């Protein structure tokens, strides 16, 4: 009975004061649209940055004379080095197959396989790559960097590249995070303000309810339900627009532009869930909390 009453009250309020409700709905719609576009962009950017960072690793090239026993020993030694997360072995044959796929003509000309057996040493975090590298190339008695095992031919030296990659990707990630925080904040404030305005138009009504002896929650529930309905409607409309845009614009492009198709991009269903949840939560909370100051009668 109570829930039914509150629902009917909410519907009545939405119908009888359509203009403020519509304003709130439009605000939710626009904000959710912006968020819906922005979240995948941030995700794709972060994904791209991360995939670049994941390529930051130390390559250990074996001598061409290395045997299987050498390989097993070197693998153990590499894993014992601090900050090493994992080690990935690429044999000569595998490397040749990979490379010749990329540039078949060049490798056909080459005839034989010039590639050594290689260990990709992956650090536990990209920031530690330089530490791992210096651990693998300890200074010998002559002051020249040596190797930790006689079976190792050389260790890749991409110090400058690595540093640049780390700096740039860090910047990208931080910027994206900052933008996300700002945009989320702006969305919440915008929606809360619109709701506050629509409540302000009805503050007299709230005052009368209080004078008749309604408890705070008796007055508040219909407003919260109205917030949920308006938030859900706005979010649904935004999702519909985004869905159409995805099918009509993005999906055809995804074949030719890898950034959009990046596997790190948020799946559409998760995006829908986030938008729906955010829209409903923000407008319901906004309604409930903004009402507080008008309830002090």
């Amino acid at each position, binding site marked *: 009975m109570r829930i039914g009453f509150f629902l009917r009250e909410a519907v009545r309020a939405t119908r009888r004061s359509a203009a403020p409700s519509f304003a709130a709905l439009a605000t939710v719609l626009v904000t959710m649209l912006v968020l819906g576009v922005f979240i995948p962009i941030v995700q794709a950017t972060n994904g791209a940055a991360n995939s670049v960072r994941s390529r930051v690793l130390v390559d250990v090239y074996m001598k061409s004379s290395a045997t299987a026993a050498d390989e097993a020993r070197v693998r153990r030694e590499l894993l014992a080095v601090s900050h090493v997360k994992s080690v990935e072995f690429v044999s000569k044959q595998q490397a040749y197959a990979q490379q010749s796929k990329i540039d078949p003509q060049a490798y056909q000309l080459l005839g034989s396989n010039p590639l050594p057996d290689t260990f990709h040493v992956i650090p536990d975090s990209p920031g530690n790559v330089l530490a791992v590298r210096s651990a693998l190339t300890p200074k010998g008695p002559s002051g020249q960097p040596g190797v930790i095992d006689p079976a190792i031919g050389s260790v890749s030296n991409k110090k400058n590249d690595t540093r640049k990659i780390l700096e740039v990707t860090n910047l990208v990630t931080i910027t994206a995070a900052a933008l996300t925080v700002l945009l989320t904040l702006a969305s919440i404030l915008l929606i809360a303000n619109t709701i506050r305005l629509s409540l302000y138009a009805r503050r007299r009504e709230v005052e009368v*309810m209080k004078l008749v*002896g309604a408890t705070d929650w008796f007055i508040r529930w219909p407003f919260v339900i109205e917030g949920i309905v308006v938030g859900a409607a706005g979010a649904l409309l935004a999702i519909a627009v985004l869905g159409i845009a995805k099918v009509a614009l993005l999906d055809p492009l995804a074949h030719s532009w890898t950034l959009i198709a990046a596997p790190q991009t948020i799946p559409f269903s998760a995006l829908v869930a986030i938008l729906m949840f955010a829209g409903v939560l923000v407008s319901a909370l906004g309604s409930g909390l903004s009402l507080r100051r008008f309830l002090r*009668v």
Partner: protein
Amino acid sequence: MATSFTSRDRTRRRAPVAPVAHPRQPVRDPADGRRVIDFRGVSKLYSGDVGLDQATFSVDRGEFVFLVGSTGSGKSTVMRLLIKELEPTSGTIRVAGHDLGEITRRRVPFYRRNVGVVFQDFKLLPNRTVHDNVAYALQVTGGSRKDIRAKVPDILRLTGLSTKLHNYPDQLSGGEQQRVSIARAFVNHPPLLLADEPTGNLDPETSIDIMRLLYRINRTGTTVLVATHDQAMVDKMRRRVLELSRGRIVRDEAAGLYTRDETTRDLARRLRAPSTRPPGV
């Protein structure tokens, strides 16, 4: 139920007026149970300005009392204190035995359900019909649909609004809106009805109708306190009058002929008759 204690009350009536300056014993006195409103040394300051200054008075169950005074004399302050919209700066207010100072913020809504309030500007909910405005007062108390179906048509018939059930407030005249407001205030049959300038926005003929309605409610045993500056109406009604001036109670008297058992029809006839006494008594 309201009518049952009216008859008992009538037989037990005592002299209605206590002198203003009369010192009261701090201990419980036997009249407590009969007192609906009891102000003791109540002051209210608005950031330095005096709203009410050491007001002490009481109103017994079943009384019909006018609260008069010019603008800013403290009438509205008394009303707002009574519905606990304001807190007194000092002094105690008791309503039907409850000390208002002891009612927590959380309990205020439940207290307000026992006090019907009628305002000069009606304060109806603009997006509800007449029926729904009155029903809202029942809904806040958790009244069931059955309850609403039983009580609302009754009260609307009493107030003469049966034909306006489905109209919205902006489709009604001022007098009709005030009737809706009274219906809403009375639908819970509160023991106390407050009316703050109920006729302030109405023409004389409509005012008489509204006063007649308030008197009819009073006859069911409800205590009625009316704040007004309509001096002529007060003189004609011949009820107890409390006069405020700059926050002080300067007069408390039962006007000469206290004809309590007058019918509402007689009252209306008397109100419509030309004034027989000079105004300002």
